[in-house]
């Protein structure tokens, strides 16, 4: 059987072959297991996945299938126990904890289900947080924050605190925070899980715009098939393995 045929039948091989030449993310035999007492509990195993630059990938699957674990590995929040993980040409599976921290600040933007904004800070101060890690001056930071807030349509809410914003607006602030430092990769963990349908559609349209117009590579974990429709492609995970893709 030829390699091409094998890839057609094997979803992992199919996922791995997608945009292989221009892959931003390149996972090979990626595995993650946790220790529970003396036992090793595998969460992800032998996962092969390529994510091309500019892709908008939806990851679906039942609870416990390893979606969030994969997202954590892609975002450098956790390290794999097996395989290799290369992002933008760097083997992040070999990075130390502090190297991962610095790498995250430069390359990844995170968007969470519950927004995770700092309640004591205004929208603009929340968006500014990742820029505090750069050498930008206060003036330059303010300029970038204004651009990011304008991009998500919240320029007029810059001075508001999260408690003074709606759920949709909070998520827009979180998106602005994720893109303000112009990362290569946006990782979204159930970004619309806490929003009503209309607001969810707005947020997904915004992500789609960022993908199509700004060229952002997005990986989105979701349970919602309607949300997945906004992505360019969807991969399904079950018991730590990719089972299908489109």
């Amino acid at each position, binding site marked *: 059987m030829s390699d091409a045929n094998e890839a057609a039948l094997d979803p992992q091989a199919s996922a791995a072959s997608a945009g292989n030449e221009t892959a931003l993310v390149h996972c090979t035999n990626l595995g993650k297991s946790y220790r529970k007492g003396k036992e090793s509990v595998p969460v992800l195993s032998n996962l092969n996945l390529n994510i091309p630059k500019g892709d908008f990938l939806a990851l679906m699957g039942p609870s416990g299938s390893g979606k969030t674990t994969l997202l954590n590995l892609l975002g450098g929040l956790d390290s794999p126990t097996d395989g290799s993980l290369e992002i933008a040409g760097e083997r992040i599976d070999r990075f130390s*904890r502090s190297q991962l*921290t610095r790498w995250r600040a430069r390359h990844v933007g995170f968007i*969470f289900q519950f927004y995770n904004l700092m309640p004591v*800070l205004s929208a603009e101060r929340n968006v500014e*947080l990742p820029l505090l890690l750069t050498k930008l001056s206060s003036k330059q930071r303010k300029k970038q924050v204004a651009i990011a807030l304008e991009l998500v349509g919240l320029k007029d809410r810059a001075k508001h605190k999260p408690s003074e914003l709606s759920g949709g607006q909070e998520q827009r602030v979180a998106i602005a*925070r994720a893109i303000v430092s112009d990362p290569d990769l946006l990782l979204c963990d159930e970004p619309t899980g806490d929003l009503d349908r209309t607001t969810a559609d707005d947020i997904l349209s915004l992500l789609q715009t960022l993908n199509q117009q700004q060229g952002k590579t997005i990986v989105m974990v979701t349970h919602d098939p309607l949300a997945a429709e906004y992505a360019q492609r969807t991969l399904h995970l079950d018991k730590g393995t990719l089972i299908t893709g489109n």
Partner: protein
Amino acid sequence: MKYFYFIWKNLGRKKLRTWLTIMSIVVAFILFGALGSLSAAFTQGAEIAGADRLVTIHKVSLIQSLPYSYVNRVRNTEGVEAVTFASWFGGYYQDPKNQFAQFAVDAESYFDIYSDLLSLPEEQMESWQNNRIGAVIGTALAQRFGWEVGDRVPVTSMFPQEDGNRTWEFEIEGIFSAEASGADSGSMVFHYEYFDEARQWDKGTVGWLMIKVADPQNAGEVADRIDAMFANSPAETKTSTEKAFMESFMKQFGDIGTITGLILGAVFFTMLLVTANTMAQAVRERIPEMAILKTLGFTDRSVLVMILAEAVLMALIGGLIGLGLAWLMIGAAASQVGAFLPGFAMPTDVWVQGLIAIVVLGLLSGAIPALQGMRLNIVTALGRR
């Protein structure tokens, strides 16, 4: 500095809790400032004592007086450069509440011996020496009662005059000032001759002698020589350096340094527990937020530093307000107690020690929460959300 705004905002997250903790720190540092200054005021007498001065008192106690004849005998002792003497007057002005120190002294020699500590203008010195009932007062005393040169003041003493009258009249001829911090400017000195001639009893005696030695290196030998001269006499003496004398005198009130140290230690320890508890609660409530900061790329060390900075900032606000209030209170009280505690003020040492205590308090109270924040695992912390 770019993190300051965030740290400041975090401090104001639970305003009531933060302010209650800060108020506790304020009270603790008012105590720190006040007790530290009190202790310093008690010990600074010994600190400014001249290395070339000895004090001779009656061997039994300071209350027992010495024969006047000792003055000349000591003056002629080998190694002695100059001698002066004083007697306690034990008086008050108008009301027994208005206590202050008065000494009958030798106007010719008193200010010579203390030229490094006290200064009296030359013309006032001359006027005083020429007026038998003249007295000179310190600047603090002048300020306390509003006395001026030329005023005639009555002072009621424990010593009655020959006619039984206990109220003595003095004419203020000069106002001396302290040349060194802590030198006594809250007292009055007047002519020993006036006192000795008019008093009803204990005539021909002096309270103590102050001796200036020719060579401070030989102070011990000179002291032994003086005491040996009066050994086995009805009024044996005890001569010591001025520093030893001051320390021994202050010990009559108890070991102020140890007492204040113990109180401050207890206060500091309690404050440490209170502040550490506040910081632990504040950090526990923010574990997911700290995980987010780390997710965004804040390093373990920057999280540690931010938590420590928050704890130090809280201690700084409370501590500086506390020390500031202590300074104001001491300033207000100084004019009232200056007569008993010359130089009662908040010295630089107390400010410096206070600032060190503030930083130590902040660092210690924030240490455990900061370490927890630093070691926080992002995945575990986000999973708690």
